[in-house]
């Protein structure tokens, strides 16, 4: 389709109408440029949402006791549901499919924590050993809370990097002591977490110690467990079983949805993923619309071009140009404009996205906007088909020009 002669002809033609060519090319470039930017933004939004989940185990279920809202078995509503150690044991024994299970005891209020002369306020949580899996906590030094810490109610602490920085600076911290409102704990581990700043300035202590020291008797504030490889349906079923088990233990009506606040991350995650699939589809739709405008522009320009050149086309026909040769001529014009302009738009879009990327590396809303190879190839395929669509009508018209118009050219 594209010999040297045809290429020459085409270059001459594009050059003769260079302003028009440039404007059309601009429309196409702009279309594909916007498409790339939109797709990258959509991907960034999705990345941001996925990242939001990254910090916690995606397959986790979180249960919190709230206020009872319906009367049941002769008991009035209004009391708060308070989980106990026994609830955790009951879940462990009677709920099949639990992979990791942990309670959480929030030591309420920001406690002053000190080491030597340095002091700061941090968030303190009493947890079980399995908690390390639920928050996807990464132990970077030392160890996490272990079963013996729980059994012996040891005063040990696992601290976050911001705690370590604030209290120890460059000093060694493992095995050293910190004071939490007068009580001395030994630092046994340092963790990291992919969540934000809040996640990095915590102190984890054994839940049994927390209950003892901070007068919690055997109270638990939050129950967390993971469901392993369970499917959505299995996960939902486990959520349901946990609800009925805990409702039964606490004398709550099963209809009382507000008494137990249950967060199923797996289902939430899937819902959010679905939303982002829709957003992504929408983004493509908008981008394609913009591109379509460019294509209509190209088609228009070609129609005008064919109209203007009807005498020339007539002459060519009189000299023996077949309809196919003319269709080729027009299509290759469309192809070259869209491909060159499209490539330029694609290139600038990708360049801009790559250039802007570092600014979004840590952002929560739009994170790491990116254009992958697949999207680029799809965009390219769209371009080529767009060129063909844009060229179809004008090419058809060119093929139908009557050669007699050449005779009437006076």
């Amino acid at each position, binding site marked *: 389709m594209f010999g040297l002669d045809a290429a020459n002809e085409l270059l001459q033609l594009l050059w003769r109408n260079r302003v028009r060519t440039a404007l059309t090319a601009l429309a196409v470039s702009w279309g594909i440029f916007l498409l790339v930017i939109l797709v990258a933004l959509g991907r960034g939004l999705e990345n941001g949402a996925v990242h939001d989940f990254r910090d916690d185990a995606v397959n986790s279920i979180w249960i919190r006791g709230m206020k009872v809202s319906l009367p049941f078995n002769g008991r009035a509503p209004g009391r708060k549901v308070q989980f106990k150690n026994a609830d955790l044991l009951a879940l462990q024994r009677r709920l099949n499919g639990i992979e990791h299970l942990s309670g959480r005891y929030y030591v309420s209020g920001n406690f002053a924590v000190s080491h030597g002369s340095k002091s700061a306020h941090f968030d303190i949580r009493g947890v079980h050993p399995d908690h390390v899996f639920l928050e996807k906590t990464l132990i970077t030094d030392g160890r996490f809370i272990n079963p013996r810490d729980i059994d012996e109610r040891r005063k040990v602490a696992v601290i976050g990097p911001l705690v370590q920085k604030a209290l120890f600076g460059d000093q060694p911290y493992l095995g050293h002591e910190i004071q939490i409102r007068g009580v001395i704990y030994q630092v046994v581990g340092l963790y990291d977490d992919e969540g934000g700043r809040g996640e990095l300035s915590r102190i984890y202590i054994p839940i049994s110690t927390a209950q003892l020291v901070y007068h919690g008797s055997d109270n638990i504030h939050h129950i967390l467990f993971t469901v392993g490889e369970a499917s959505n349906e299995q996960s939902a079923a486990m959520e349901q079983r946990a609800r009925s088990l805990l409702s039964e233990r606490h004398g709550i009506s099963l209809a009382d949805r507000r008494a137990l606040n249950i967060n199923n991350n797996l289902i939430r995650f899937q819902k959010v993923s679905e939303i982002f699939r829709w957003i992504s589809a929408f983004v493509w739709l908008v981008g394609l619309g913009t591109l379509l405008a460019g294509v209509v522009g190209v088609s228009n320009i070609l129609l005008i071009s064919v109209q203007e050149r009807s005498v020339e086309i007539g002459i*060519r026909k009189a000299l*023996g140009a*077949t*309809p196919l040769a003319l269709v080729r001529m027009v299509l290759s014009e469309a192809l070259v404009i869209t491909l060159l302009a499209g490539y330029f738009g694609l290139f600038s879009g990708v360049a801009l996205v790559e250039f802007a990327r570092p600014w979004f590396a840590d952002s929560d809303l739009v994170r790491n906007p990116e254009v992958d190879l697949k999207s680029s190839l799809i965009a390219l395929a769209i371009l080529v088909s767009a060129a063909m669509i844009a060229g179809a009508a004008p090419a058809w018209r060119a093929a139908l020009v009557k050669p007699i118009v050449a*005779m009437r050219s006076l």
Partner: protein
Amino acid sequence: MPRLIEVEQLNKFHKSGDAPLHVLKDLSFAIDEGEMVAVTGASGSGKSTLLNILGILDDYDSGRYTLAGTLMRGLSERKAAQYRNRFIGFVFQSFNLLPFKTALDNVALPLYYQGVGRTKRRRLAADLLSKVGLSDRAHHHPEELSGGQKQRVAIARALITRPSLLLADEPTGALDSVTAASIMELLEELNREGTTLLMVTHEPSIAARAARRIVLHDGRVVS
């Protein structure tokens, strides 16, 4: 001499307005190879329409038109294009050169549509340009050429495919009389060398130079 063109009972209507206009009425004539024929007649007599049909630029409604033994009737655009390319060279009153191409490229263009390679094309085009006396103008664009030079380029272009028939539509209509005479000399020379020439003209002095005249009046051959 063998028959080149045979036209029998040819009819052509123009479908404009309410009633179709009967433009060519039962035309019959024949032209042998090597002839030089002038088609004349007042404007509106149908001579341009006849030329279009003979040039396979237009179709006709009834009758027969045979060119070099092949019936030209109801051809597809592709076939028509191929026959035009192979059998016919056109010379137009308004030259119809492509303005953005040099004289050489204009002459070579019909061979492009035959798929002839670029080098060979340009060599043949250069030969023909020298034959019409324009070797030194090969790389000029039409706007840099005089009317007579343009028509010479157009004639060279018409000849490059070695057509059986050269069709000329008022070939001197846009030229002054001196230039017109030189173009006619060129056409006569080509005819002497064996090219069959059919030209449409309303100028008696030009028509007089042809060995044979077909005079049209109101869509009929009157002599």
